[in-house]
């Protein structure tokens, strides 16, 4: 019975659904082309290259590690053992790894930029050792 109601509803509003699909495709295409074009202009490359470059760099690099990230996210992204950063950087937060990097530095009264540099070195050293 409810399926019948749904079928009737869709039939009565067929125009709405078709318009929505068309509008949706227009949004998506415009958004994608617009952003890729903006990136291409900024990086002075061809439109197709801008997208290919973005796809090739799927995961973040060590240089892009920022204070707003959490240790859990970094462990996942760089495929680190769960306790590696905790042991290497002597992190003693009970909330580890679900704690923000900058938040931990502030809580432990460590200078944020220095801690970030140590973090990046630790990640880099693990990558080099593998």
């Amino acid at each position, binding site marked *: 019975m409810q399926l019948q109601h749904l079928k009737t509803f869709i039939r009565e*509003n067929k*125009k*709405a*659904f078709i*318009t*929505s699909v068309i*509008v*949706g495709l227009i*949004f*998506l295409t415009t*958004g*994608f082309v*617009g*952003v890729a074009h*903006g*990136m291409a202009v*900024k990086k002075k490359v061809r439109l197709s290259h801008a*997208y290919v*470059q*973005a*796809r090739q*760099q*799927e*995961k*973040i690099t060590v240089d*892009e590690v*920022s*204070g*707003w*990230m*959490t240790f*859990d*996210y970094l462990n*996942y*992204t760089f495929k680190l053992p769960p306790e590696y950063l905790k042991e290497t950087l002597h992190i003693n937060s009970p909330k580890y790894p*679900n*704690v*923000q990097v*900058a*938040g931990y530095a502030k809580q432990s009264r460590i200078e944020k930029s220095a801690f970030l540099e140590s973090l990046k070195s630790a990640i880099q050293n693990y990558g080099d050792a593998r």
Partner: protein
Amino acid sequence: MDFLLQTILSYLLVYKYLVLFLVTFFAALALPIPSAATLMASAAFAAQGYFDLSLVIITASLGNILGDNLCYWLARTFGPSVLRKLGFKKYLDSPVLLSFERHINRRPGIIILLSRVEVIATISVNLLAGLGKMPYRKYLLYDCIGEVLQVCMYASLGYLFGSQWQEANSIIGKVFLAMTFGGMIFAIFLWKKISKRVSRQKRS
């Protein structure tokens, strides 16, 4: 990246879909929260495998739809009485506002769908739909379709551009700033045009 967005992203990484829902819900209620950037970031995290893209789309759509519906019902239930108490009776009963409401009720689909792209347009249309007592089923249908499309658009961009989502977001931010500015000029122009038409109708 601004401090608010950084804070939201930190909580997003810890509390995941709950934060995404809350951000999209409160952004739909006109709070100045970067919900598009949060959604794009969530989709970028999904591209990296840290989030699930289908859950990102469902959660963000739900947040937006519930926020829009709350806006609609608040405007419909309390809008006229609150505006009268605040001294806006003259505008509430103005032929220009009634003309706007009639336009929205005549073509609800395309107006609601297109307004989902820009936040000020979304809120304005939600409020006008509520004040004008647009039939709720019609409003809900187009709102659901529009919000799912909007969420899919931002999520697709975040997913497709992956770790470059911040750059994609800054480009989109500039485009929508220009659209907002253009939209405001268009709205002022439309208001003046409708006012003139209403004055002419009154005189004749």
